[in-house]
């Protein structure tokens, strides 16, 4: 199966420091691909560069192809329109707006190629948001805010949904709940690139995993292969045979 998202020889730098170095990565149709690594490994820098988004001014070289089209020079708001949709780590919603306003703010173009999610579709995925529709996002719990962030990303008719650490700050019970929601979206045909610090949880839901170390890919394989990988077990799963 050909890759829907293909990242080739991607380098991201800030001044003289290189945060992501010659990374190759791909995501196929209907696949959940996870990226894991220690803090500072460059995971967020990598996926932000894939989405063309940053709060700084990084230098990005290499290729980011969405359905064969190189989008690396296209600004973030247009990549969103093309279906390459990012939910960033931390603040991913407008706190000053209600849940409903956040969801309604996203309106994909008529010819947007990705799958369309109406407001009711989003409430179907996250039923608890329906009861909080008129609540300001600043009043929501961390889990609810994450659901709104994913919901507004779905509204953008994504072809590839990029999620950066959606479990950060969530209670352990909510982590699996959010990841299971994401897995169901993939089972419905969505393609997802997931950055997840909780490798054990990521391996539960992902099809494949890339390991990132100091900005470089240090290993990759199917979830089953990576679960059996000695280095992964030692570094991320609390010892061999975990």
């Amino acid at each position, binding site marked *: 199966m050909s890759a829907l998202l293909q990242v080739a020889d991607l380098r991201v730098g800030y001044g003289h420091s290189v945060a992501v170095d010659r990374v190759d990565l791909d995501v196929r149709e209907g696949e959940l691909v996870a990226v894991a690594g220690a803090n500072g490994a460059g995971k967020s820098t990598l996926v932000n560069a894939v989405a063309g988004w940053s*709060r700084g001014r990084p230098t990005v070289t290499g290729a980011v192809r969405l359905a064969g089209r190189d989008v690396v020079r296209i600004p973030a*708001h247009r990549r*969103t*329109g093309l279906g390459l949709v990012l939910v*960033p780590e931390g*603040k991913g919603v*407008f*706190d000053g707006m209600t849940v409903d306003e956040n969801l*309604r*703010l996203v309106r994909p173009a008529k010819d947007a190629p990705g799958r369309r999610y109406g407001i009711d579709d989003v409430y179907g995925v996250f039923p608890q948001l329906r009861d909080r529709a008129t609540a300001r996002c600043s009043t929501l719990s961390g889990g609810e805010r994450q659901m709104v962030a994913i919901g507004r990303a779905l509204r953008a008719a994504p072809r590839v949904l990029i999620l950066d650490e959606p479990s950060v700050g969530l209670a352990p019970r909510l982590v699996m709940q959010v990841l299971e929601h994401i897995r169901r979206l993939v089972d419905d045909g969505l393609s997802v690139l997931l950055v997840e610090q909780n490798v054990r949880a990521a391996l539960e839901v992902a099809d494949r995993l890339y390991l990132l170390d100091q900005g470089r890919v240090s290993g990759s394989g199917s979830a089953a292969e990576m679960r059996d990988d000695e280095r992964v077990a030692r570094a991320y799963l609390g010892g061999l045979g975990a």
Partner: protein
Amino acid sequence: MNVVSQLVNGLALGAGYALLAVGWTVLLSAARLVNFAHGQLYMLGAFVTWFATTRFGLPYLVAIPVALVAVAALAVVLQLLMTRLTLDQNIVSLMLVTLAFGYLLQGGAGLIFGGDPQIIDSPFQRQDLSLGGARFTGQDVVIIVLALVLYAVAFYVLGRTNVGRMVRGVAEDPKLAQLYGIDAGRVYLVVFVFSAVCAALAGAVVAPRSPILTSIGFEEVIITFLVVVLAGIGNLIGGLVVGMGLGLFTAVFGTYFPPAYSTAAAFVLLLVVLVVRPQGLKAR
């Protein structure tokens, strides 16, 4: 002039301030942009209206849209020149750039329109009305009604439409807005043009009340800034209330004290309010 006439005069004056403030309130909250050329856009609104009526013989009501289109076109050019600075939120450079634009516009207007005082011939200014012993002109009514309508429209658009949600989103976090598929640069452009058109409209309807010079604008921009700060940044309804209140204050003050001191008195009011309520009238 009796008390009622003074009140109507104050309301018209305040509605003029409010008209000038509405665009700036939206601009400041959405783009954090303090536009020191705002007063010169007001001046241009007045002078292009005058030019269109005297040189082209256009009726006043036709000359106003001509002035709005001309100022809108100019605003597009100004904002395109400032796009990078606005996206980077380089606030200090933006202030200096808009100040420079202000001086350029004033100098350019002096070259084109001359240095003599001019009077805009408005049929509403010739219309004398009276109500309950108060005497005022049709122009006063036009200014007050226009301010109320414009604020109602702005309130509706910002609060209830997707364009308004985009503006509020960019105001809260322009970077995050990109991930919603919003082109922050385009939103800044729309808001800047809206702000400029509001200033021009204020110029076109307020200016017929007194002779105009190309040097007008700086006093108005200071008063407008006062209104925006007193109301609280981004507080639309507050802008209307403070604008009207400041107009009434100025009119009443002018009844008992020399009008030359009215601006200084308004700033004393600002100091008192900001010491007591640093966020202005805006709710915390």
